[in-house]
Each structure stands twice: as C-alpha cells, then as structure tokens.
C-alpha cells in the first residue's frame, strides 16, 4: 500500500491529538501556582485529570504522569501502521528497567534492598516478565539482545563490580538495537531520528566526561556508534575548548544546541542548558514531517513532544514540591508543539 494511504489516517489523528498537548499557557499557570496543590489543580483541567483522580497522595504525581504517557503509547500503538515505531520509542524504558533490576540484584548481594519501586510500566516488556526472567535465570525469551547481555552483565559484576561499565554496555546495546529496528522500518526519517538521538546522547556523555576530566582515550567507550557525527570526531573535541565545539561541528544541525556552550560560565548550568537544547534538537530532526500529511516520522514527532510535555510537568511539580524558584523552573522547560 502507498505510504500516503498507510499514514493518512495516522497523521491526521496525531494532528488532532496535538490539541491535547499542554501549551505554554498551562505551563505558565502551573508555574504561577503558589504551591504543589495549586499546580495540580491546574493540571486537573487537562488530559491528566483522569489519572490525578487515582493518585493516592499529592506526592504520587509521578504515577499520574506515567499513566498518561502509557495511555498515549497504547493509543498510538493501536492505530500506527508500523508498531515498531512505538516499540522504538519505548525501548529506552526497557533498558532502564533492566538497569534497575540488575542494580537491585547487586544491592541484594551486598545486603541492600531491592528497588523495584523504580521500575516503569512504559517499556515494551512488563516489569513482571523481566523480574521472572531474572529470578529464574531464564533469559531465552528476552528480546533486543538482552538474552545475551544480562548474563554478560552479571558476569562482569562478579569480576569487577564496575557498575559504570555495565551501564555503558547496556547503553551501547540500546542504541545499536534502536539502529537495527529503525533500519528494519526502512524509513529514512526514522533512521535519522535514531542517529540524532545517538548524537544527542554522545554530546551529553562527552560533556559529563569533560566535567569528570576523563582522558580522551578512556572516553571512547562511553560514546556510541551510529550517530551522524563519528565517534572519532567527537573524541577529537575532548582536547578542544568548549566554546569551539559549535564551530567544529558547524557542518551538523547540532550547532544550535551547542551555541549554549558560548556564554555559560559554570559547568552545572551549562549541562542543564545543553541537555534542554539537545532534547529540542531531537525534536527538530523530525520537525519537517509536520508539513507532510503522510510522513511516518509524525509518530516520532508526537511521541517525543509528549515525552517533553511529561518532562515539563515533572519539572514543575517536583520544583513546586521543593519550593524551587519559578524563574529557574521556567528556564528548564522544553518547547512543546503539537
């Protein structure tokens, strides 16, 4: 079937669903609220209302945010012609769950408690299934290369107790699996989006490594292959001043995000600003699809916008719960456009 016929309904429905995304006016009202209760009251006027009703106490807003995201993923999965596109967006949550489970196992071995409360239901694999696989040591049914990776990580822990190395291996697998899935979809825009996400993650890692003053030779292991910018090029940035990164990567679309590096003095503020700019960069990779009535990338655009919306809601609510300054919170908000 022609692409226009496959995605005509999906794109139109996503465009109409765009009305449900919270706009800057709602975020502003939440920011202007006196306290957490006031912010939740504003949120209660939006699509989050049905989940807020089920909230056990005011502090459990994370569950409401997760429930809304989960509902949107389920809804899109029902009508998107390529379910793999939703799988692609949910995959990082599976790897998050695997990390939580492995860390719980390691904690248990050293007499600590399991942290299953940190598991999320947003992944493709249910937490129960992952727990059962780990407890029975039966990894045969695990997808995304986890079948081999989990025993590998357990062995690594026994040898070195190096949690950073385990996280690095899992992240490497995540991005390679996302690349494989995107390639199977045979949609150029989807592949570009995954490559954009890899670039964003690499830049994020590079900045963190720079802050930790890690040598370039050791940084290679923390960068993932498959992005638009080669790992070699990224490694060469380690020896350059931060202000020149934007100029050195001027041939990519990342220059906008890296322009933040020019005028921020302290590293903490810089990382926050760049993270925000990188999130918006990932959205911009598929932004052109908004002008097409049949582009499959519209699914990614909507889901990423929803993720940003959830992130904004979480930032505001956590900030309100902790009495953070309104202007500081405003500076952390991502751009959401349905």
């Amino acid at each position, binding site marked *: 079937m022609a692409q*226009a*016929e496959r995605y*005509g*309904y*999906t*794109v*139109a*429905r*996503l*465009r*109409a*669903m*765009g*009305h449900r995304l919270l706009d800057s006016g709602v975020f502003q009202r939440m920011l202007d609220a006196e306290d957490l209760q006031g912010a939740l009251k504003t949120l209660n006027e939006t699509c989050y209302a049905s989940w807020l009703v089920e909230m056990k106490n005011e502090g459990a807003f994370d569950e409401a945010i997760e429930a809304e995201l989960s509902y949107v993923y389920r809804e899109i999965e029902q009508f998107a012609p390529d379910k793999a596109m939703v799988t692609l967006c949910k995959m990082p949550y599976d790897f998050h769950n695997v990390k939580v489970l492995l860390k719980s196992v390691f904690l248990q071995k050293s007499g600590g408690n399991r942290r299953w409360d940190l598991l999320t239901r947003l992944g493709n694999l249910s937490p129960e299934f992952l727990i059962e696989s780990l407890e029975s040591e039966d990894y045969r049914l695990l997808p995304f290369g986890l079948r081999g990776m989990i025993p590998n990580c357990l062995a690594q822990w026994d040898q070195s107790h190096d949690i950073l190395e385990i996280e690095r291996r899992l992240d490497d697998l995540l991005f390679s699996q996302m690349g494989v899935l995107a390639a199977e979809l045979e949609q150029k825009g989807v592949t570009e989006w995954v490559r954009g996400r890899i670039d964003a993650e690499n830049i994020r890692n590079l900045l963190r490594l720079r802050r930790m003053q890690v040598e370039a030779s050791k940084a290679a292991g923390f960068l993932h292959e498959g992005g638009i910018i080669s790992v070699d090029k990224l490694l060469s940035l380690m020896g350059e001043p931060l202000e020149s990164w934007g100029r050195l990567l001027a041939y990519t679309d990342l220059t906008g995000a890296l322009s933040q590096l020019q005028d921020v003095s302290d590293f903490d503020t810089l990382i926050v600003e760049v993270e925000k700019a990188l999130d918006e960069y990932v959205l911009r990779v598929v932004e052109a699809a908004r002008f097409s*009535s*049949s582009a499959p990338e519209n699914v990614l655009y909507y889901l990423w916008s929803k993720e940003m919306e959830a992130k904004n809601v979480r930032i505001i609510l956590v900030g309100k719960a902790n009495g953070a300054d309104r202007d500081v919170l405003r500076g952390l908000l991502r751009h959401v456009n349905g």
Partner: protein
Amino acid sequence: MDQVVTTLLTTMSEQLGAMIAVLGAGIAAGFAGSGSAIGIAIADEAASGIMTEDPGKFGLALLLLALPGTQGIYGLLAAFFAILKVGLLGGAAVKVTIWQGIGIFGSLMPIAIACYYSAVAQGKASAGAILLISKRPEEIGKAVILPAMVETYAVLALLLSIILMNSIKL
C-alpha cells in the same frame, strides 16, 4: 459461409467508428471515476483521523472530501457528450467512420488522463487541507482554495475535450 463472413465484416466496418468512440467514452468515465475514488479515499483517511478526536469537524471535512469527486463528474459528462455525438442516446442515426471514431477517442484522452491524475493529487491536497482545519478551523476558506487550485487542470482538460469533440464533423 463466405457470405456470412462478408456480412459480418461489413457490419463491423460500419459500426467500428462508433464503437471506438464508445471505447473512448468508457475509458474517460472509468479513469476519471477511478481517480476520484482514490482521491476521496486519501482525503477520507485524513478526515477519519481528525473526526476520531473531534467528530464536530465533520461538516468542514465533508466540504474538502467532495472536491476530488468532481473529476468523476467531468469524465461522465465528457462520456455523455461522446455517446450523444455518435447518436447512441436516441435521435437520428449518425454514421461514424473509423477515422472519426479514432478522433472522438483521442478527444476524450485529455479528460481521462488529466482527471485521473488531478483527482489523486487533489485527494492528497485535500488531506493536507483537512490537517489544516484540524488545527485552525477558522481557516476553512483558505483550506478549500488550496486543493481547488488542482481542479483548474481538470477543468482545462474538460474544455479541451469538448472543443476537440466539437471540431470533429460527422
């Protein structure tokens, strides 16, 4: 036997011109109608998408859905002209030579080809316009004008087909 074959061939040669014209009429109506059906289906997908979220947009979407349907009407109109010209819709019997039949067939090709492609293209343009009204319903005027511009070429093809058909003297 020879006489039967001769009679058959004579009848065929007498009616072949009219039949070629009828073939042209069939192709014109068939292609234009198919194009319209595909175009409407493309626009339909978009309309169903926005109506799932907002059923109140039905009225606005219907206007845009109807646009790719006009090509099918043009095809049918041209086909009627052709069969009227060769006298198959009553009136005095008209003798159509093979060359005149081929001429009428040729005159119907602009409408068959242009209507097929313009209807499909208009369906895509309408789908885009339906997305526009999903976000900005107040822009319905502009949303109708954009796909309507595709219509121009179907109208020009209809005009040319009628001029060409009228230029064939029977």
